[in-house]
Every structure is written in structure tokens, then in C-alpha cells.
């Protein structure tokens, strides 16, 4: 997943985005993606709201404070927004990463195990956000151990050997 996001150059083969290798123009490509990795990308010593602001500083289209509040409400985090991230549970931090997907819209999502640490409500929320993204002509590459319940056409690639061999 980190290779697809352009963090690491592949030793073999290439990754094409709109028919050009992503490493030719990495900056342009990386502006169009949202990456959700194993780590949350949350600063533990800042509050959730400050984390929202800080991550929005780094992207081109900054969300307004009202959008930030709306998204935090949508992801069920508005009552925690002035609490430092280190005091929250892992599931709440994972929800915040989902909120960030909504805050900084990008056409291409790269999600590495997005369902980990999420409870069933959180998983439901994730599928809602994902379906909304896909119905707006978004693309997503998802690595997961679960079955993905998406209402849009998808291509599944099984990596590694199946268990029964």
C-alpha cells in the first residue's frame, strides 16, 4: 500500500496513474490521494479539533470551521473534539481518521486495514462514507481481512495462499 501511495519506489514494475508513472510527477499524484495506514497520523498531544486544523493546513483545499464541526458530528466525535487525542480510545482515533477522509476530499483513497479497531457502528459508518465516496466517482484501494460490503462494482484480489491448501 505504501508503494501505491508513492512513499516507496518499487524495485520491480511500475505504478501508472492516468497512464503516467506516479514517480514522474509524485507531487501532483500525491495531492489526489488520501492515505489511511496502520498508524493514525494523529498528534496525541493535540485535541481532535486541533488535529483537524493541522491536517487541513497541509492540504490545498482547506475546510472551513463549520465543515470541520459538521464532519466531527457526522462521525460521532463532536463531544470529544476538545479532548486530547491521547486520552481517546483507539476506536475513537480510527473514527477520526474516517473524519479526515471526509475533510480533505481526494478522488483516490488508499486504505490499509480501515476496519481495524472499529466497532460495528464504526464499521457501518465506514461503509457509509466509502459508498458515498464511490457514488461521487471516487476510487478506493482497500487492503482488508474482512469481506467488504460495498454496493458498487469492485474487483477483489486475494493475496497469499488460501487457508485450505
Amino acid at each position, binding site marked *: 500500500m505504501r508503494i501505491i501511495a508513492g*512513499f516507496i519506489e518499487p524495485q520491480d514494475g511500475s505504478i501508472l496513474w492516468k497512464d503516467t508513472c506516479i514517480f514522474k510527477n509524485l507531487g501532483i499524484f500525491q495531492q489526489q490521494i488520501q492515505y489511511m495506514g496502520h498508524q493514525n497520523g494523529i*498528534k496525541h498531544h493535540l485535541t481532535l479539533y486541533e488535529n483537524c486544523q*493541522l491536517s487541513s493546513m497541509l492540504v490545498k483545499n482547506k475546510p472551513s470551521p463549520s465543515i470541520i464541526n459538521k464532519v466531527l458530528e457526522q462521525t460521532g466525535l463532536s463531544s470529544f473534539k476538545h479532548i486530547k487525542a491521547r486520552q481517546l480510545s483507539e476506536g475513537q482515533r480510527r473514527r477520526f481518521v474516517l473524519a479526515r477522509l471526509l475533510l480533505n476530499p481526494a478522488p483516490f483513497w488508499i486504505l490499509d486495514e480501515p476496519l481495524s479497531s472499529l466497532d460495528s457502528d464504526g464499521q457501518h459508518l465506514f461503509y457509509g462514507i466509502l459508498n458515498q465516496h464511490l457514488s461521487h466517482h471516487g476510487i478506493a484501494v482497500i487492503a482488508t481481512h474482512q469481506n467488504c460490503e460495498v454496493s458498487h462494482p469492485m474487483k477483489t484480489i486475494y493475496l497469499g495462499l488460501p487457508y485450505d491448501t
Partner: protein
Amino acid sequence: MIHDLLYIIYYEMRETLDQAFTWLTPLLFFIIVVCLFPLACGPDPVLLTKMAPGIIWVAALLSIIISIGNLFRTDSEEGFLDLILLSHYPLSLLVFCKTISHWLTHCLPLVLISPLLGFLLHLSFQKECALVVTLLLGTPVLSLMGSIGAALTVGIRRHGLLLPILIMPFYIPVLIVGSATILAEAESVSGYYAMMGAFMLLSMAFAPFLTGAALRIGVTQ
């Protein structure tokens, strides 16, 4: 854009100041190292005055190299580094912001406490002033050059003393000129200041680019 970058510096600093030990330990380390010398070499004022610039400079250098190693570590562990790498701002600009906040939280306290330590080592008032000015000009160089090493070693888990070994040799010119400035006679001192200033401007111009490039290599480890 300036507004965004200032905010990034502000949040960086808040994060550091929130955990007192991250900025306090390098400062205490600096003070303790300086205080060890009079204990080890004896309280002879003539000897101490002669050695004071070297002692304070070496102590500052050690303290900075310890603190700079963690410049990207928390960000890397929390995954925030990925957001920095994906940003539309040039990476060199963002690492420069991080280095500025490192300087403000880790090096500026050293500069502010140094007159007190100079007093402890029997420095005259004129030499005290020279000490503060050289540290003001020199510590940004140490921060900026250290950030290159910190970026290179960010992906290595148990890097231990790798960073000091990697970066210390590049600190030597600053150390030589820095301590020589304080010892120089009043009439020849301006040339030394000019040289320190040149070091600072040179490192400001080139180090952020090198740090950015090093970071892209560092995260692949």
C-alpha cells in the same frame, strides 16, 4: 501560506511544550555537563576562563545532537509523517518549519541560560556577550545540520549513537569558529562573526532541501 506555516510551527511547539521532559532534559543535560568541568578540572579561574568557550560549545553541541534525533521520531510513530509527505507544500519548507520549532524549544533555552553558565566559569562581560551572539548564530546551524541526520535515521528503530557519529564531523567547523570567536581579541572579532553568519545562512539555504530528500529516503527503511 505564511499563515499555515506559522500555525504548523505553533502546533509543533505546543506539542513539545506540552511534554516538559522533551525540552527540559536537553537543557538540564547542558547545565550538568558544563558544571562537571569545574569539578573535574579544579576551580582555578584562569584555567576555567580559558576553557569556558570550548566547554559551553561542546555541551551545547552534545545537548542539541541528543534532542534533534527525535525531530521526526514521534511523527513517524504516530503516522503524521505520511501526512507531511503527502502535503502540497514542498517537503523542504515543512521540515524547515519543524527545525525552526526545534530551535525555539530546544536551542533558545540553551542560549538564554548560557550567560549564567559563563558567569560560573568566570567569563568577562564582553566575552559573555560574544558567547550569546555566537550561540545565537551557531545553534541554528547545529539544528539544521542535525535535521539531515535525523531524517536519514528516522526509519531505523535502534539507531543509538548512529546519528552523533554521522553528524558530529560536520559540526567541527562551527565548533572551531564558535569557540574561537569568544576567545578572539576585540579588534579581530567582526571577521569571526561574519563567518558564523555565513555558516548560518548557508545551512538555512541548503539544509532544508537535503533534509527533505533524506526524509524521503529515510521513510523507505
